[in-house]
């Protein structure tokens, strides 16, 4: 259970996100549950002072990142989902996201894909910078770092799933792709989140 003070602290944080993220959340909730579940999440958000309805979210419009974080927390709170389910929701998002479909150039060449990563982030968020720190093509691994985006650990779990699936879309169908948050600003006293991506093909 998250307290009011924490909610207020999240709401104070600056930065916007595209409405597409709310659509992908709604898509996953409806995939697993019902319209009632969406309503439960909206009621939870209302209780926290965010009057928002998923159906009104315009994919290309900007909304506070704080709402995005609270939406994930409301999903956990209202639907009783755990971190693994939030991660799965993140994994589902690139498959249904309008931003991915319209703007992502999913080059199979991993170097070219890596060059696109900061751009992908900017298409979604006005806060934070995502960049590739290390790319070892032969070892099929990449380290990416997200700076200035310390909102809440719930977003870290979501993004872990998201990065995994976005990378998977660039690899052959039988490739195994994994993403793991190796450093977290909430856990490791570092001013960024770092994710290790690995792939087999």
């Amino acid at each position, binding site marked *: 259970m998250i307290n009011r003070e924490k909610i207020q602290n999240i709401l104070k944080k600056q930065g916007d996100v595209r409405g597409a993220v709310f659509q992908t959340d709604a898509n996953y909730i409806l995939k697993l549950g019902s319209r009632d579940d969406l309503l439960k999440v909206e009621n939870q958000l209302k209780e926290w002072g965010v009057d928002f309805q998923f159906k009104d979210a315009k994919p290309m419009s900007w909304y506070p990142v704080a709402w995005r974080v609270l939406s994930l927390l409301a999903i956990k709170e209202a639907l009783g989902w755990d971190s693994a389910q939030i991660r799965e929701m993140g994994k589902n998002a690139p498959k249904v996201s*309008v931003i991915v479909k319209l703007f992502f150039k999913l080059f199979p060449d991993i170097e070219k894909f890596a060059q696109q990563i900061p751009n992908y982030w900017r298409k979604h968020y006005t806060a934070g910078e995502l960049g590739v720190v290390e790319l070892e093509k032969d070892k099929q691994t990449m380290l990416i770092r997200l700076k200035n985006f310390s909102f809440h650990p719930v977003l870290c779990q979501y993004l872990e799933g998201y990065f995994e699936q976005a990378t*998977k879309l660039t690899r052959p169908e039988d490739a195994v792709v994994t993403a793991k948050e190796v450093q977290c600003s909430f856990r490791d006293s570092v001013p960024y989140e770092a994710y290790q991506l690995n792939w087999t093909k």
Partner: protein
Amino acid sequence: MDKENNFSKRREKELAEDTIVLEKAIKNFWEILPIPVCTASPIFIILETGKGFDTLFGYIKNELVGESLKEIAFDKDSFKKILSQLAEQRKISNVEAVLKNKKGEKISVFVSAIAQEDEQREVFSYLFSFVDITLMKKTERELQEKVADLERFQKIAIGRELKMVELKQEIEDLKIKINTG
């Protein structure tokens, strides 16, 4: 400075509004287009499918996103050849292929596709369209069978005619032989 800021903000707002309009138009286009269409990555991983595509192949929306396009090929090897041709030529038109729906039933189609390239002419996705010609192929097969039947009948009929001519000639020859004998 304020004037510049106001102009920039107005421009930004206009762009955002235009983007929303365009996004809606694209969404509606995908939704209403009766022709099965889909987009795929440069290695043919499905990225988006239209309603017509989902209907033809019997999948629910987004079910095939992230899967290989080869998933819908009935004969994977011949479909691979078509995809190689596309990767090489960057555009194909009305190439015949046999695909399959979710139940595994054969669907004959004409495949057309075009590569979408970036500024360096590198392919970042392909747009595919499929025209269902299953019914046309079925009718074509039925017609071919009828033509074959007619040909067989014609062969038999002509053979009979020739035999009769031959027999008539034989009778004539025999008559001559009797009369002269």
